[in-house]
């Protein structure tokens, strides 16, 4: 293993030891910090779990069950808006699922060192967000119990899916992404599961023993693992792009005014990363507080993520503007009607709220380091971005359908209680899965942090402590 030394000199005002990678602790202490966070549960945790279980029971089992029994009429979809909150939620959760891959795979490929402590938290979001997103096409179907007819498998009735349909591409892309991102979550988890196995007894010990696949930490094992992670990190990036591009194509491939746009693929991908990274920040802030992970999750991380959000806010604004201006300047009658609906119609308050949350607030605040590193500020900004991104999808889905090419077929859409309950139920499903996983899986990739700390060192030069980074390759 060759070691290349690259020296970096920080501004003198900053203590390099504020950075996680320059502030190493003994291995055992760090392992214990992660394991303690995992095994400690207060009454507050169980209260949250209980509330979430009730919400899931009401929303998914109650409301969705009622909808299956009664038919789609209990939802607010009516002519002409036959795609409503369910498709909005679907697009939203697919967007959230982009967090993990972006934060973990892209930052890993670019060797961004600040990624180390929170890759796992982001990857976990990807898998669970995909599970929730994957529920929505089923919830949306008029005949949910026939969902599997979209799956291409030889059968007696000689049914075969239509590979010309963007919905079919969508299903294949989502399954590919779900399988790929779950494997990509699992691979870097193996050394941490082995660590947890060595420290645990009882059911945890058994669980980790099975999941760690007999990991011993030999040089050959590390070599294979690193190779596999690198392959997956590169392979999962195009899959991530494909998933949201195809979701955008569900809309873009139709003739519907307001949807039929070649910019939709990249526009949706940028929006997805924007909302996904914001959701990562929200989740990290909550985890840091609830699980006392201040050692691992520091100001520098939120600072760096804040910069990413700033860039993606600008990128989203650019795409939004390009799409809007083209539609407006083209001057097609239906398109103009659609834009008028957004600017002055009943959805106008939502539309302006979207612009405030997605454009005004991030672009005006996130350039400031003090705001980027403040807990409350980042929590509010990132929550606002996800509200804004939800509104964006809602307006794209329901707005374009309510103003179509034949004015006789114009109408409005209002979600019903059932749709709202199912939406809350699915959000609760995500939080519940995450909360349960946070007590079973080591949420901090300890080995990655330790690996990073090995390559970062403070050297004494004269009176000064100079941080130095060696690149392991």
């Amino acid at each position, binding site marked *: 293993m060759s070691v290349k030394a690259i020296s970096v000199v920080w501004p003198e005002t900053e203590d390099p030891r504020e950075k996680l990678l320059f502030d190493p602790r003994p291995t055992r202490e760090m392992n214990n910090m992660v394991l303690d966070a995992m095994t400690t549960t207060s009454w507050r945790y169980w209260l949250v779990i209980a509330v979430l279980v009730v919400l899931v029971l009401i929303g998914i089992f109650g409301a969705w069950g009622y909808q299956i029994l009664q038919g789609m*009429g209990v939802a607010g979809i009516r002519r002409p808006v036959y795609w409503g909150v369910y498709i909005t939620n679907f697009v939203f959760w697919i967007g959230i699922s982009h967090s993990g891959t972006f934060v973990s795979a892209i930052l890993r490929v670019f060797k961004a060192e600040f990624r180390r402590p929170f890759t796992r938290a982001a990857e976990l979001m990807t898998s669970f967000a995909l599970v929730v997103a994957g529920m929505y096409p089923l919830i949306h179907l008029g005949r949910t119990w026939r969902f599997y007819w979209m799956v291409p498998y030889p059968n007696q009735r000689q049914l075969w899916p*239509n590979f010309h349909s963007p*919905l079919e591409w969508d299903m294949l892309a989502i399954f590919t992404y779900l399988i790929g991102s779950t494997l990509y979550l699992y691979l870097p988890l193996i050394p941490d599961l082995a660590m947890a196995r060595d420290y645990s007894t009882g059911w945890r010990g058994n669980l980790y023993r099975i999941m760690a696949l007999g990991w011993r930490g030999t040089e050959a094992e590390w070599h294979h693992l690193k190779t596999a992670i690198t392959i997956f990190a590169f392979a999962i990036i195009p899959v991530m792009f494909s998933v949201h591009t195809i979701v955008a194509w569900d809309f873009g491939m139709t003739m*519907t005014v307001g949807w039929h746009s070649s910019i939709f693929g990249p526009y949706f991908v940028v929006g997805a990363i924007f909302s996904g990274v914001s959701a990562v920040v929200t989740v990290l802030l909550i985890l840091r507080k609830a699980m006392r992970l201040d050692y691992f999750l520091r100001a520098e991380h939120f600072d760096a993520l804040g910069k990413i959000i700033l860039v993606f806010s600008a990128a989203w604004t650019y795409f939004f503007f390009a799409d809007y201006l083209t539609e407006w300047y083209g001057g097609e009658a239906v398109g103009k009607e659609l834009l008028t609906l957004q600017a002055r119609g009943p959805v106008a308050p939502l539309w302006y709220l979207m612009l405030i949350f997605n454009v005004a607030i991030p672009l005006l605040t996130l350039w400031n380091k003090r705001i980027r590193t403040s807990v409350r500020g980042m929590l509010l900004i990132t929550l606002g971005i996800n509200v804004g991104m939800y509104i964006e999808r809602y307006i794209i889905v329901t707005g374009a359908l309510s103003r*179509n090419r034949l004015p006789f077929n114009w109408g409005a859409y209002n979600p019903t209680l059932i749709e709202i309950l199912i939406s809350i139920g699915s959000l609760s499903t995500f939080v519940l899965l995450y909360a349960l996983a946070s007590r079973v899986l080591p949420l901090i990739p300890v080995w990655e942090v330790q690996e990073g700390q090995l390559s970062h060192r403070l050297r004494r030069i004269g009176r000064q402590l100079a941080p130095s980074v060696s690149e392991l390759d």
Partner: protein
Amino acid sequence: MSSENLDKATKPPPVENVARRRFLQALAGAAGAGLALTNLSRIAAEGNGELQAVSDSAADPASLAPPITSGDGVSALERMRGDIQRALAKAPEDRRWVMVIDLRKCVGCHACTVSCVAENHLPPGVVYRPVLEEETGTFPNVAKRFIPRPCMQCDQPPCVPVCPVNATFKNEEGVVEIDYDQCIGCRYCITACPYGARTFDFGGEYADDTPVAEGIVVGREVAASYERATNFEYAEARTREGDRDESPVGNVRKCHFCLHRVREGMLPACVTTCIGTATYFGDANDPESLVSELIASPNVMRLKEELGTEPRVYYLT
């Protein structure tokens, strides 16, 4: 013909079409003689024997002459029924079912919409053939016209390629069908259709929320039993009672040119019901058919032709 006058108020008079003039004369004659009513009741009660008779007479070259003008008393409806008989004698892929709607003759009575609902037992929220109303001009120079809008049965249908399970397709006669056994209800085709021709069957009934009454004549159950009666779309008997998978509930539904009637030699319900005979139906591959004659006129348009969907519904303006 007040619509004729309104047309003239807004644009130069349309080029008079010989066929059209013949029809107008024919209809005027028929109406004057009270024949139209007789024809309608005959069609309602038509039996196979009579159909055979029509078909026989259609085979006779003398009877292929344009209606009424020859003085043989053949109305537009009868001629179209003859057209259908001839088309049915051909292989399915050689037929080209088209519909022609004369907007100048449509008075906006919505009888076609209602007859369609009755024929196909359509539930609330499902309409195959609404009549759109269009107002043009500014007061006092205003005009109103009515545009019945069945499914366009496009030759390049945007709804077909988007179906993830191949549940909707163009059949060998060129009519876009939905297989109710195969549709999973994703409603993608609805969003893809630029004409709003597709609607979703939520499973409701007009009789929902009506009072329950005693007896066998009135009340919710009596009304609902009519709605739940078997319908015969695509020549398949389906009832809304019992297993939902056996009915179209939870599926997308659309106009299918009353294929189940056409295959039996009958005209679509909307055509037979139209009080002004403004709707025509037939095989455009048959040069002798009434629709071929009509769509050859210069005043033909199709809805949203610029989208390239190649609709099979022609409007005479």
